[in-house]
Structure formats: structure tokens, C-alpha cells
């Protein structure tokens, strides 16, 4: 189950959140009212150089005190505030959404190629595993995730997402089947620049989780999508795989196909499967991953979940249903169904 929709404007023109809210709401039967969420890129231009750390607090006493302390130890909090929300009749407010705009001190992480990001990653893992009542659910620069337990419209109105303008949007309507619906379990999942929405179930979760944990990540949200965000961070940021090859690691060609490839191509695919076999994802899934410079959508290797792509001018859409895309943009230039495992990539012009 679950409904996903995403859009990127390759010319970086901003879109407010109202149309994606409508599109997601069209797929209400793919959800159960237990989780929905949105991610938007480019929403904090005034703090573009700061990491926007979104958290759920159970209360603003002990957990917040502990978070303040750890953030101050590792860098500077430029600004902080409660994320503005408006009470909704059918959304039970169980957490307090908060945001910090934070700059880590890179000198505190000597020997790292990407000290700022490593500090943020470490802080996310540390807060989520050791501070009771605090959960970081978004930590990128100039991006924000907005999610809660509720129907898509209620969650959108709760956060007033029509007030935000972004050049990439992801949205997700959740039908939890394996784990309880709770605020932390709603999608998108995020780490640094990476945000992920996912429809399906990753049967390789146990393998993927144990792989990623051996690189210092800690899975705390009890769901299989979190691991995708961490895998993207590991393979792309830390190991430097280009986006296409990252997807190739997640949903590689079958060995039979690899055997038929020409030499350099075959060797590359061999190397990816042998090196990143534990990152291979199994089970039925359709996933969209976003970073600041674009989105990539792909399905499992035998396409057990739907995925549709479409283009209209500078915009690329990827979603579970064509009808949802048409709700955002009725006149599309081109609509297609990607092959199993084949990535659809929308890059922002640099």
C-alpha cells in the first residue's frame, strides 16, 4: 500500500505545497490516516548555510535541555523555534515539532573529509539513540520534512505547507502494515540531504540494517524506509557512487543479464554486486530519493509496486498513480512506466 508522489523543477523554480497536498489526497485509499508527510527543498533561503534540524519533542523540558546541550557542544545554534502548526480536528498532536538552524564546528571532527556532515550524522544517531523523548527527523541544509500521524490533508494543513516554497517536493501517504503508525514512522525519512519516500516492504531489511549499522548508523524508527536514507548517505556521500550506480547497487540487474554484458560493463556490475550485495534491496518497493540536486525513483527488480513518471516542461514527476500527477499538472508532455529496477533521474540544472 502507501501512495507516493514527488516532483522536481529542474530550473529551480519554487512551488508551494498546495498542489502536492491535493495530489496526495487523491490517493487517500492508499493510506489509513496513520501517517503522512512532505519534504521540500529550498524552503529555508534565509538559513541556507545552516543545517535545519527538525525534531519531535515529547516535552520541552528534559529532552530539549539535553538536545540544546549536545548541539552547543558541537557547534552554534543560529536560530530555533517551534515549527508553526495549526491544530486540526482529526489530527492528535502527540509530539512537539521543533527546528534548529545549526552550524557544526568542523574542527571538532579532524580527519574527516566531510566533517560538517559527519558531525550532523553523529548527532542524529546520538540524539535518536540516547535522548529519551527527542527524535530528529530531518537534518539537511535548506530542506525540511513535515510529517505526522494523520491523513494527508490534515498533516498538510497542520504544518501549513502551502506557506513553503520549494523546487523539489516529496509526499507520502502511509498505510502501516508492519509497525504501528506513529509520528516518527511517517515518511519521508531523512538524513542530511537525503529524503526518502517508499511504498512497499523491504524484505531484506534485516540484512540492510545490519550492514548499515556496521558503518555507524543506528536505525531507531522501526521501519524499513529509514535504512534507505542511510544507505544513500553511505553509498553516495561516503563512498562516492554516482546516483545511477547507487540505484544499481540497490536494485541490480540479475546475474544472467550481467553475464551477457560486454566486458567493462560486466566488470562494473560484478564489482557493484560483490561489494554492495548487502545493500541490495529485496521485496516489493517503489522508492523516490531526493537530494538538493535532484530526485531519483526506482522499483524493485521485478516491479511488485507501481511507479509512473511524467514530464511537463522543466518538471519531472514520479508517483504511484498517474491520476495523482495529473492532479498537479493536467497537461503532461510525456508519461511512462519505468522498467523494474531502472532509475528515473531528475537533475536540477546547476
Amino acid at each position, binding site marked *: 500500500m502507501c501512495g507516493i508522489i514527488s516532483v522536481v523543477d529542474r530550473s529551480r523554480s519554487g512551488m508551494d505545497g498546495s498542489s502536492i497536498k491535493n495530489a496526495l489526497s487523491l490517493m487517500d485509499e492508499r493510506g489509513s490516516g496513520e501517517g503522512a508527510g512532505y519534504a521540500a527543498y529550498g524552503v529555508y533561503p534565509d538559513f541556507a548555510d545552516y543545517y535545519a534540524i527538525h525534531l519531535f519533542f515529547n516535552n520541552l523540558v528534559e529532552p530539549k535541555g539535553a538536545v540544546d546541550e549536545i548541539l552547543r557542544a558541537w557547534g552554534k545554534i543560529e536560530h530555533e523555534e517551534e515549527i508553526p502548526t495549526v491544530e486540526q480536528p482529526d489530527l492528535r498532536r502527540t509530539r512537539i515539532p521543533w527546528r534548529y538552524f545549526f552550524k557544526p564546528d568542523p574542527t571538532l571532527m579532524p580527519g574527516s573529509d566531510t566533517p560538517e556532515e559527519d558531525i550532523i550524522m553523529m548527532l542524529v544517531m546520538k540524539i535518536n539513540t540516547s535522548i529519551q523523548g527527542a527524535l530528529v527527523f530531518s537534518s539537511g541544509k535548506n530542506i525540511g520534512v513535515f510529517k505526522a500521524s494523520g491523513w494527508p490533508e490534515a498533516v498538510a494543513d497542520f504544518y501549513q505547507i502551502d506557506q513553503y516554497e520549494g523546487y523539489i517536493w516529496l509526499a507520502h501517504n502511509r498505510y502501516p*502494515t508492519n509497525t504501528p503508525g506513529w509520528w516518527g514512522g511517517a515518511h519521508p525519512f531523512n538524513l542530511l540531504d537525503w529524503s526518502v519516500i517508499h511504498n*512497499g516492504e523491504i*524484505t531484506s531489511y534485516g540484512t540492510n540494517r545490519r550492514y548499515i549499522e556496521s558503518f555507524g548508523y543506528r536505525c531507531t524508527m522501526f521501519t524499513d524506509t529509514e535504512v534507505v536514507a542511510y544507505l544513500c548517505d553511505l553509498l553516495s556521500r561516503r563512498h562516492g557512487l*554516482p546516483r545511477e550506480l547507487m540505484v544499481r547497487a540497490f536494485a541490480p540487474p540479475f546475474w544472467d543479464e550481467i553475464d551477457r554484458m560486454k566486458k567493462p560493463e560486466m566488470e562494473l556490475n560484478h564489482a557493484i554486486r560483490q561489494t554492495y550485495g548487502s545493500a541490495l534491496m*529485496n521485496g516489493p518497493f517503489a522508492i523516490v530519493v531526493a537530494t538538493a540536486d535532484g530526485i531519483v525513483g526506482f522499483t524493485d*527488480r521485478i516491479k511488485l509496486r507501481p511507479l509512473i513518471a511524467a514530464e511537463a516542461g522543466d518538471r519531472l514527476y514520479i508517483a504511484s498513480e498517474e491520476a495523482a500527477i495529473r492532479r498537479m499538472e493536467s497537461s503532461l508532455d510525456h508519461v511512462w512506466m519505468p522498467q523494474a529496477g531502472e532509475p528515473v533521474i531528475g537533475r536540477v540544472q546547476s
Partner: protein
Amino acid sequence: MNPGSVPAKFKVRIDADQCMLCERCVENCPYGTYRREGEHISVDSRRCVACHRCVAMCPRDSITIEEKPVDYRSHPLWTRESREAIYNQARTGRIVLAGMGNASDLPIIFDRLLLDACQVTNPSIDPLREPMELRTYIGKKPRKLDLRKKRNGDIELKTRLHPNLRLNTPIMIGHMSYGAISLNAQLSMARAVASEGTFMGTGEGGLHPALREFQDNMIVQVASGRFGVDIDYLERGAAIEIKIGQGAKPGIGGHLPGEKIDPDISQTRMIPERSDAISPAPHHDIYSIEDLKQLVHSLKEATEWKKPVFVKIAAVHNVAAIASGIARSSADAVVIDGFRGGTGAAPRVFRDHVGIPIEAAIAAVDQKLRSQGIRNEVSIIASGGIRDAAEVTKAIALGADAIYIGTAALIAMGCRVCGTCYRGLCPWGIATQNSSLTRRLNPDVEWQHVANLIRGWTLEISELMGAAGINSIESLRGNRDRLRGYLLDEAMMNILDVQPVGA
């Protein structure tokens, strides 16, 4: 008192009305249970080891073998086994030998682990219609790939992959030497692994010329005795395995009695005829991980870094730390042999009491290597009493890359697990070098049985994976979410890192 006499273990009976006096039982029993006496066959039940050769060969189904009920006063502590061991030892004053695997009645963890299957939200995959990938590469893997973008935008792979063994199925056959088993038994298994696209071990007995035809599917072993090891041997193998320990007898060496060293074995092992072949407990050049590393390097150097080198250890309580040292010694795979591993001959006290279960050992090793961030760079091969496809699947879900079978392959060739391999009289022509017995095993027939077994298990693993919604073995490896513990205590579930049923 003379403690020599213990009651017979089995009662053999012949139905005289059925028997046609063909004497096949007489010919077939190497232990001398049967004798023709005039118009009937007389039986000495005391000699019977319940190998069932006679039962299989009797054309009239006239033979019945039963376990003989205990005629000692029953006692919960002083069981028949414990008393008889004492009687035997009081009589001989020697170490009691035993063959095959651990015969004590300890709980089997595999039986208390259950596999998972998908239902509605997560469809199971039908292996008859969808591709299932069991192909497994054993050997070192890079931690990450080094890629360069070329001017034309193409991506160039800078990383050079280490040599790996390519297996079509995660099932291999472990090391059983020529000497411990017959050449016909080795030939049958070699042909089977070649046909199924997998590998078998030579054991420490060298590589007989008749096996060269299958050398691309054979892993040559270097044990402490270094029997049969020369550069030609190393170069012929597809991979090299250094044997430090064995599951059936951790901490002790091997011993092939001089009587078994016939001219052919003496040639293959490169030792004098009729001399005892003793592998010492330790390698006399390995007393630390650094020493092991030197041997790994020397073997790689000698074979021009073209072959993966494995290191096999017995599963013992600190197996995880040892395996981590091995992983860092630049070995390509760690082989862990659990306490149910089979053997031609071991002191009974070792076979039944030393070592730990393979299930716990896999879990602990996999976890340790992960906590050190090196699990992905080295393969884990598990062995020790693996009995069916479900156990292979469970072993992989716990963290193994592949498994070795031993006894199961012998059973496929006729072994009845009578446990008397150490006497060298195996009635099925397996654990013997007696030509009248080895003739009984026809490699042209038996290879097919072994191949069938591997193929059948492989199909079952595909089905189990499909049921779990997994179409590639990489996603089963270390996937402990697909296992549930049933009637296991909490401490054991923690070691295995599995949830209880219902969770």
C-alpha cells in the same frame, strides 16, 4: 571382576522361512556378524554396528535389526552409555575412539529457529516463474569501490576485485581426506560438485591424480601435517584452506593409522607406506595471528595471489575474536566448524563434549565482524552437522555466506551413520581403504545421488527464499529478521539476535 562384557547393542534376526541361503549377508558384513552353518545362517549380534548393509542387500527382506533394550537396571544418571564407556575404558585403559558426529542428546538450536514467510502486504515470490538468485561469491570483497569518471562521461572501475570462488548454490562439500574416505567416495563427490557448479575440499590427504579432472571445483587443504602439500598441489586447487581446527575435535590434531597408508595413499599424501600420518594439534609455525598471516601470505605469494585462502577453525567459545583475527590476517574466508561436525575418528570425549553449536558461532562471528565494520570484506562458511535445506537457509539468515556439508553427502552415497568409520571397515565403501569394500561404491552411480541432493536442497532454498519475498541470496545473508526463536531461552536469543515467535 572382569568388566569386559557389555551387552550387545543390537539384536539381529533372520526370518528362516524367508531366507534362501544366498549368503549375501555373509559376504556383505565386514564385521563378521553372519556365518553359514549348514542349512541356516547363524548370527552374532554382538558384532553388528547397525550399518544396514545386509538389510539393503538381502533379496528376501529376511533380516531385522533392532536396538536391543537396555538390560541394566535403569538409572537417570548412570545411563547405559556412561556405564559402558567406563567398562570399556577399565578394560583397555585407552582413549575411546568414535566416528561420525556428536552423539549426545543436546538440544539442536536449528530446530528451535523458525523461518518466516510473507502473506498479503508483501507478496511471496514464485521461484517457478520468477528468477531466484543463489549465486554466491566466496572471497574477499572491497570495502568500497574506487570509480573515476572519464572525459567522455563513462565510469571507469579502478578497484580490482580479489579472486573469488563462484558458487551456483551456497552448498559446498567440506574436507574429507583420501585416507579418511575412499577414492571412490571422493570421486563421486567431485563429479557432483563439478556438475552443480560448486566446490568440495580435498581434506589434508593431498590430491589424487584421478581427481585432477575436477580440480577447478576443489579446495585444497593445508593442515598441520602438510601432507601432500607441494606447489603443484597448491596450484591445482581453486582455493586453499588452512585447517587450524575441526568441529568434531577442537584443539587436537589428526591421526590416520599406518594400516590405512597403502601405496596409493602414501603417494598422494607424500609419506612412507604404513607409517602413521599424524597431524599435530597446532601448526608448528603458527602460534599467533601474525604467524597465521605469514602463512596466508606465503600461500598467496606462492600462487601469485590468484587464489582465495580460507582458514578453518572449530567453533569454540571465543570463536568471534579468533575469526576477527583471521579476517584481519588477509584470509578471504573464515570457515567455522560446529561441534556436530563429523569425523572419521576422534576421541569420544572430544567429539561429544568440546566445542559449541554452529548456530551460536555463526551469530557471534557475524556480529563481531560487523561491529568492527569488516564483515563485508570476508566470507563466512559454516559447517558441522547441517542436515537439510532449512538448516542451510537458517545458517545463512544467521550470517553465513555458504555452508559445507559432510555427513549429508556421505549419507547420499549410502552411509547409515553407524559411527564406526574409525574401524576402517565401512560396509558402504566410504570410510575404508579395503579394496573389497571400496569396490562397493560405484562413482558412476553415486555422484548422481550427491548431485541430486545438492540440487534438491538448492530448489528448497529457492522456495524458502521466495516464501520470504527474497529473490537474491544476498538479501538472506544475515537477515535475522526472517528468523524467530521458539522455546529458546532469552540468553540464547540474545546471542542469535533473533526475536521470539509472535514478536
